[in-house]
């Protein structure tokens, strides 16, 4: 059993997406040294964070983890709802995570805590499923969509890693579907006329962006190994959601063959709905969050209904950081250089100023 571990040098992968940026902002005052890496520039400069251009799909990331003497990795570079094609998503989710795990593995590795972002999509959605997914119900025999398959593979890799490396506490957070920053589900529900499956009214569950970030921060700062569902309390029926959004349901999708429904959605609403979401709007997906509540002593503050109403009010679009002009990145590089300079004995110079 590991001793109580205090995160000292933290690396956040996928820090440039809005969730990663929010997690970094919340972690910055809590940890001594914070690194962030991504392939894209961060949307905003965070003075306390060192940004590194690194792609998790290359093995360099594992060297980076050892070189920087990282002791806590927050792995958020996991694509779930993304416009990329399934091959690119597989590369990032499975190969990228594998590289990160290689960096964390072995007795030589300084990593003592690993937090991995997963998604509700890992459960898929089908009529044979129970009404509530608890943590042990993932790993369907035949995953219905490529994202579900990727996430299952990712979680299996993480599970094997956790078994082999007992010194490293591993937390997997299955985040619920979020309705902010232009997710496919939010765009779908915001349509004026929403094509729904004829004769289906599924139960949906949503998670607020703040609660998602808060769960990740709590997992990073606390000692909570295991797999956890993170979802808002309660449910919203699809018909209710459409009513709250002020749209109209058009029951035109046929429940025979998912590709047909996807084709119809593309033709009628110009919306590319990934396979797992097409299943969700047909059969619904709700997670049981009781394990999170008992282990963390905390649960998402906003219920599914409140998240829904937030989207309807348009307040959800409240951007955490405005997209910054290009010079922001230069500024950040300058700030980093200055801090590194301070560490390298130039402190006296700064003190005299």
């Amino acid at each position, binding site marked *: 059993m590991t001793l109580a571990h205090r995160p000292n040098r933290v690396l956040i992968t996928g820090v440039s997406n809005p969730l990663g940026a929010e997690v970094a902002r919340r972690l910055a005052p809590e940890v001594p040294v914070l690194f962030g890496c991504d392939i894209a520039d961060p949307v905003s400069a965070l003075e306390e964070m060192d940004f590194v251009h690194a792609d998790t799909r290359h093995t360099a990331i594992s060297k980076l983890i050892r070189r920087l003497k990282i002791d806590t990795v927050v792995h958020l570079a996991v694509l779930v709802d993304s416009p990329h094609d399934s091959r690119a998503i597989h590369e990032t989710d499975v190969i990228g995570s594998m590289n990160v795990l290689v960096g964390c593995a072995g007795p030589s590795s300084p990593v003592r805590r690993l937090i991995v972002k997963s998604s509700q999509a890992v459960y898929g959605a089908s*009529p044979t*499923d129970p*009404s509530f997914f608890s943590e042990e119900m993932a790993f369907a025999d035949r995953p219905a969509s490529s994202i579900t398959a990727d996430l299952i593979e990712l979680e299996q890799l993480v599970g094997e890693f956790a078994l082999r490396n007992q010194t490293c506490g591993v937390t997997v957070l299955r985040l619920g579907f979020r309705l902010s920053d232009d997710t496919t589900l939010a765009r779908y529900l915001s349509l004026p006329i929403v094509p729904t499956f004829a*004769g289906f*009214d599924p139960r949906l569950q949503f998670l607020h962006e703040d609660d998602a970030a808060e769960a990740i921060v709590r997992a990073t700062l606390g000692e909570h190994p295991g797999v956890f569902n993170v979802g808002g309390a309660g449910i919203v029926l699809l*018909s209710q*959601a459409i009513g709250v959004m002020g749209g109209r349901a058009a029951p035109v999708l046929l429940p025979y063959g998912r590709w047909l429904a996807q084709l119809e959605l593309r033709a009628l609403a110009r919306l590319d709905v990934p396979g797992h979401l097409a299943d969700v709007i047909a*059969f619904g997906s*709700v997670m049981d969050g009781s394990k999170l509540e008992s282990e963390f002593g905390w649960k998402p503050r906003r219920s599914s209904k409140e998240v829904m109403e937030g989207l309807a009010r348009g307040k959800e679009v409240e951007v955490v950081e405005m997209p910054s002009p290009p010079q922001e990145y230069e500024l950040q590089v300058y700030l980093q250089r200055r801090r590194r300079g301070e560490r390298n004995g130039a402190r006296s110079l700064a003190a005299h100023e």
Partner: protein
Amino acid sequence: MIGETTAQERKRRSKKAEIVQPRPGLRLPKQVRRLQRRAPMYALQGLNELAVRLKQVTGHDVIDLNRVMGFVQFLYKQQELAQRGADYAVDDFGFDAQWTESFLSAFMVLYRDYWRVETTGVENVPAHGRALLVANHAGVLPWDGTMIKTAVFAEHSHPRHVRALVASMFLGMPVLSWFLRRTGQTVGHPDDTRRLLERDELVLVFPEGVRGTGKNFKDRYRLRRFGRGGFVSTAIRSRAPIIPVSVVGSEEIYPMMADLAPVAKFFGLPYFPITPFWPWLGPAGLIPLPSKWRIQFHPPVHVEEHPVEAADDQSLVMELADEIRDTIQEGIYDNLRMRRGVFL
């Protein structure tokens, strides 16, 4: 938060007062509009007078005004429900109690007038707390479930909603999936049963499943295998008593002569029945026959007195399952004897 809003935001939130203007086009005279408004009232008054006259002539009630009023109430409730918008409460399983209760009068007509259900032992159903109702399953379509639900809600001193477990196949079908969930049914998964019982609900389970509904008419009132006794283990784990329920009459609503298995396979159904009326008469063949029904609720079997570990003891579980099956089978024979005829 109050007072922090900006003038701009307040302006955005405020709603303009709507000025209601008369609809353009032809407007009927005032007298006609008043008559339109009062038409339902006049119709009821006329019906009332007709009922009184008929009673004077024939000597007994031809038109039951209570039922007429029940029907009017039903329509009124449906109209009210249609106006409540998107903001209504459903529980975590998607159950809408208000909506379900609005259908009660429709099911009461079937219960009281069509199948003339006689219910005994409804006092064995607890007024509070959890219990697992276990019933025999018959009749091609699951009308027996609706009648058990109606019986508990209408006859019990504390009306309660029964939450039935249905085969997952039906939750994959259009309309049915939506209707079943909305009226409180959920998928027959041990985890769902446990969750419902932990919320102190009444849960109805048909251990025979489609083996019961899809059986031939010549096998009527012979119980099929009771699953693998899973319902007993779930009840023991959830500390819930089991109440056996015998239903008589459901076998005769659709006398199934044969099962066209290839057709069933093509449509993805568990069976495709051939009855004297289906599929020969088209949709009219779906009308169930007006058999005479009896429902008996047996005294509870207190399986929760066994320790939780007993749920894994397969021999005890099967023994209890057999005991419950025998109780239901004997109840069926008793009630068949008490029934004067199939349609009487």
